[in-house]
């Protein structure tokens, strides 16, 4: 059996293990809730994870295009970016996928798949992780921009009136919508 068909067939199992592994990246107090909760997706955080992890997983077996998978990565990294994670921890969950798949196939699939398939999969996952890294840094930049714009907005009219920083405030309207 090819690795791709294994992944397709065992998608829900692997996704579940991946999700559990992601939850373990939370401090224990928090992870306990998310894991033990019967309907663990029934909160905005769990929901965002579940929904987008599936899209990302689909991209590994070639059924998702890049334009769909990038927003999915972005949605997840967005959450991890504002929670208590170091940058490495914020994006580490994509690398976890390598181990999750290896472990699962080792334990459950009797006849092996070809090594080159595995290498190709690794490369795909590496790409996901790199994209996540991009997301993370652009979100950090966004947070910086948000801080600046917020500080500006607070005294926006004062600045307009006294005509200081006029050049910056002129761009303010556009800058708000620059990121999509």
């Amino acid at each position, binding site marked *: 059996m090819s690795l791709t068909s294994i992944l397709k067939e065992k998608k829900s199992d692997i996704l579940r293990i991946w999700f559990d592994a992601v939850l373990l990246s939370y401090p224990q107090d928090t992870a306990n*809730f998310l894991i033990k909760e019967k309907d663990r997706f029934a909160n905005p955080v769990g929901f965002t994870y579940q929904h987008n992890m599936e899209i990302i997983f689909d991209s590994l077996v070639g059924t998702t295009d890049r334009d769909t998978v990038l927003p999915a990565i972005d949605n997840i990294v967005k959450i991890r970016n504002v929670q208590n994670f170091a940058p490495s921890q914020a994006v580490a969950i994509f690398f976890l996928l390598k181990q999750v798949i290896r472990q699962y196939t080792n334990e459950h699939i009797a006849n092996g798949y070809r090594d080159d398939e595995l290498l190709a999969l690794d490369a795909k996952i590496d790409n996901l992780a790199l994209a996540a890294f991009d997301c993370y840094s652009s979100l950090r930049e966004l947070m910086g921009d948000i801080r600046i714009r917020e500080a500006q907005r607070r005294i926006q009219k004062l600045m307009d009136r006294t005509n200081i920083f006029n050049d910056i405030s002129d761009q303010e309207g556009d800058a708000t919508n620059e990121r999509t």
Partner: protein
Amino acid sequence: MGIIISLVAVIALTLVAWIGAGTLGLHYLFGVIIPYLALAAFVFGLIYRVVKWAKAPVPFKITTTCGQQKSLPWIRHNKLESPFTGWQVFGRMLLEILFFRSLFRNTKMALKKGPRLVYGSEKYLWLAGLAFHYSFLVIVLRHLRFFIEPIPGFVMAIQNLDGFFQVGLPIIYITDGVILAALVFLFFRRVINPKVRYISLAADYFPLFLIGAIALTGILMRYFEAFKAELIAVKELAIGLVGFSPVVPEGLDVIFFIHLFLVSVLLMYFPMSKLVHMGGVFLSPTRNLANNNRNRRHVNPWNPDVKVHTYEEYEDEFRELMKAADMPLEKE
């Protein structure tokens, strides 16, 4: 941890009564002295708590509004969720106390097809809470038949209603089943729901086990031949206690003393534990005050004198600037 401590505590209490009243035969202690002490602790403890609450003033009217305020005549005012008059507050409190209104509002997040996340209604806690409290009330009222002779009509009525289905011999009371079911639900909810488990203390499990043990001993005495209590003797004891001429009649089994001892413990424990929420709910300032703050002034008995910044001080500081800006001044 809390579970084990509480369970051990209830078992230990049971053993105390077993050994004390059974093995050692201290019937007068367990049948008269302890119940009297417990009752005294309950009454005085509760009064102490309520007086302490009532003595603390209510400096501000901090109603939590859960509906439209009374403002313009053509906007429909939500009288029960945002009461304006005393009677409307009474209505809100009635809903709160008799029907657990706020708990009824409980929501739970759930995933719907789409997929999308919705905040749906979650009524189990409300239902179990209501079932538990009403069963408890009915059971307490039913017990009045032991204490009053002749048995008052309303007690008979409640008893008949409770045995409405006329099943079993002796007739099975609905509330006996309901209270056990509710206790089991409340216990498992505490254990299984990770959030509730995390916040639970020994003081949360202990009353569940204690009341469970009381209910179980009661049920054993009523429905199981081996444990059947001698009703005449029980009534003699009860009437004696009420009339302050206590006698301990012959023929009372150890199981009865266990039951009575656990009830005594509950009475003593009540005022110093979270169980006083019964009294507290009446006094909760976010619920028992009207949302008519702008209509009727609320007086704070300790309204402090504070240092304010007066207009004169303000003008003194900024007079020149205000003058330059052509702003009206009190003093030129």
